[in-house]
């Protein structure tokens, strides 16, 4: 929070706000040590038992006050500065909470604020108060000149004191602003939630949610595949079969009618082939059943190019990852056939510990650019959805190599 210089002039609103903030902190900063020290001012026990119980009592009081004090500090920041500092995770039973390491660390940070940083800030608040009061008094020292016995050099002394007072008045807002900044920063770091831990938890949470979303999409793809397989595809087969039967048996119908039957039959078969390709691209049953090797050999065989396929995945990987790897190879091969003009393709799928490495290399024309083709961009997106890495090396003139690394488990 860097304020413009005008905000730090002694008569500006910013200066008064900072001063108010810093001074309002001082009593709160003093509470803990006062609680520890105060009893000794009135009562000085000599028996060890009494000393220990008094110490214990002070400690308990401090521990009990840590949270309310922290809340008071945050309220102070909100009321004076309008700064909304995040509250630490709620803690119901102090003793039970101390069993968890996170809660212990939280308490440690809070004690650090109230017992160490707080008093220092309290000292700074006193300095701010002194700067204001002393500055004002010194600046007005000329007014007291009438009561002083006239002497040599008084005028010089008075002028010096006045200047010193003005300097203090100028310095006070800067001191207040600095203290305010330190306090806000200390409060955010020590009284709020542990940022690193919060982020860690948030990342874990998001990673879990994303894995759920990716799995859900995969599941949805399988459901669509099942539905199409059980529904439209069977109907089309039955339709094509009936048309085939009609074509074979209705030999004595007029020629135009016969031509229509023949056309319908051919159309039905073409539709079946198209639907089959579409459905197999969604999620082939053989993938869930036999794994990548079996599913990819089917894909490789459909490519009208010599494909060298090497699959070395001794232990099955997560089904969503399998689906992504399958999709990558299938799409990459489709791209090669469509755009590369290649003579041959090599596909390698190797499991290396926690990583599944997929490489599709062709000897085609090259020049593939993920930024331009929607196919490659879609692939990259799908790979990223499971935290994989995606790399295309495709200089103009070829060859092209697509390398994808996927984590074996989500």
């Amino acid at each position, binding site marked *: 929070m860097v304020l413009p210089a005008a905000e730090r002039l002694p008569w500006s609103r910013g200066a008064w706000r900072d001063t108010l903030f810093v001074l309002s902190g001082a009593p709160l900063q003093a509470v803990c040590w006062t609680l520890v020290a105060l009893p000794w001012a009135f009562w000085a026990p000599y028996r060890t038992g009494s000393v220990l119980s008094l110490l214990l009592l002070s400690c308990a009081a401090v521990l009990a006050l840590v949270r309310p004090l922290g809340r008071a500090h945050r309220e102070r920041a909100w009321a004076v500065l309008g700064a909304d500092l995040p509250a630490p995770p709620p803690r119901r039973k102090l003793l039970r909470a101390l069993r968890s390491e996170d809660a212990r660390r939280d308490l440690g940070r809070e004690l650090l604020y109230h017992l160490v940083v707080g008093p220092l800030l309290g000292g700074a608040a006193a300095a701010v108060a002194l700067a204001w009061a002393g500055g004002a008094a010194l600046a007005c020292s000329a007014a007291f000149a009438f009561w002083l016995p006239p002497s040599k050099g008084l005028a010089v002394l008075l002028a010096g004191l006045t200047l010193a007072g003005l300097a203090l008045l100028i310095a006070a807002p800067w001191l207040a602003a600095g203290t305010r900044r330190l306090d806000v920063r200390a409060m955010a770091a020590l009284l709020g939630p542990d940022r690193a831990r919060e982020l860690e938890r948030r990342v874990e949470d998001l990673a879990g949610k994303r894995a759920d979303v990716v799995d859900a999409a995969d599941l949805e793809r399988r459901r669509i595949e099942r539905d199409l397989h059980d529904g439209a595809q069977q109907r089309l087969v*039955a339709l094509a079969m009936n048309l*085939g039967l009609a074509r074979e048996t209705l030999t004595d119908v007029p020629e135009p009618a016969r031509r229509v039957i023949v056309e319908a039959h051919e159309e039905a*078969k073409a539709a079946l082939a198209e639907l089959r390709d579409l*459905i197999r691209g969604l999620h082939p049953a*053989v993938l869930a059943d036999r794994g990548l090797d079996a599913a990819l050999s*089917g894909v490789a065989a459909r490519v009208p190019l010599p494909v060298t396929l090497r699959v070395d995945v001794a232990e099955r990987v997560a089904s969503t990852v399998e689906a992504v790897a399958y999709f990558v190879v299938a799409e990459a091969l489709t791209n090669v056939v469509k755009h590369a003009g290649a003579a041959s393709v090599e596909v390698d799928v190797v499991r290396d510990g926690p990583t599944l490495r997929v490489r599709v290399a062709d000897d085609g024309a090259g020049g593939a650019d993920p930024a331009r083709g929607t196919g490659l961009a879609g692939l990259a997106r799908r790979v990223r959805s499971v935290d994989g890495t995606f790399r295309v090396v495709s200089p103009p003139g070829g060859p092209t190599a697509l390398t994808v690394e996927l984590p074996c488990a989500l």
Partner: protein
Amino acid sequence: MRVVIAEDSVLLRAGLIKLLETAGFEVVAAVGEAAGLLAAVAEHRPDLAVVDVRMPPGHTDEGVRAALVIRRESPDVAVLLLSQYVEERYAADLLAEHTSGIGYLLKDRVADVSTFLDALRRVAAGGTALDPEVVAQLLLRRGGGPLGRLTPREREVLELMAEGRSNAGIAAALVVSESAVAKHINGIFTKLDLPHAEGDHRRVLAVLRFLDGDA
């Protein structure tokens, strides 16, 4: 000829029954899942079982597994598998144990009625019927070795052979004379170092053994 049908889609089951009965087959049982198929085969001892690969409860490869059980336990029952997709891996599983009385076709082939019925009869007679797509997959998969020495025409002939076609069938498909086909086949046998054998089945068996052994 007595046939058992296992197909979980009611629509397609009815269609198959109609098709087979029109063609003069006797459909003795039609069931919707693998357990029912095994029971029906045990009860009726049919000549042929027409089996969908993907059936309840798992909807993956129940048909393939049932086919292997049937071929093992009732060798006189031929099995024709039908599937929406043909997978080289399933074909390899099937052919690893049996190369006779077995067929594996895309469901689409049902639409070409007479070709489909031919395949049915061939399988029931102890022959083989592999979908052209399976054969293409198998050839590509094992394409590295001596198969690479074949000319494109010889490859085509080998694919048709592997589908289970006779010389006359191959000649018709490629629109060449039967003697030209015989010449190609001799060329294939020589290049693949296969001994000459009589009859369609032994020929297919030799081809499939080769495809399987070259993995």
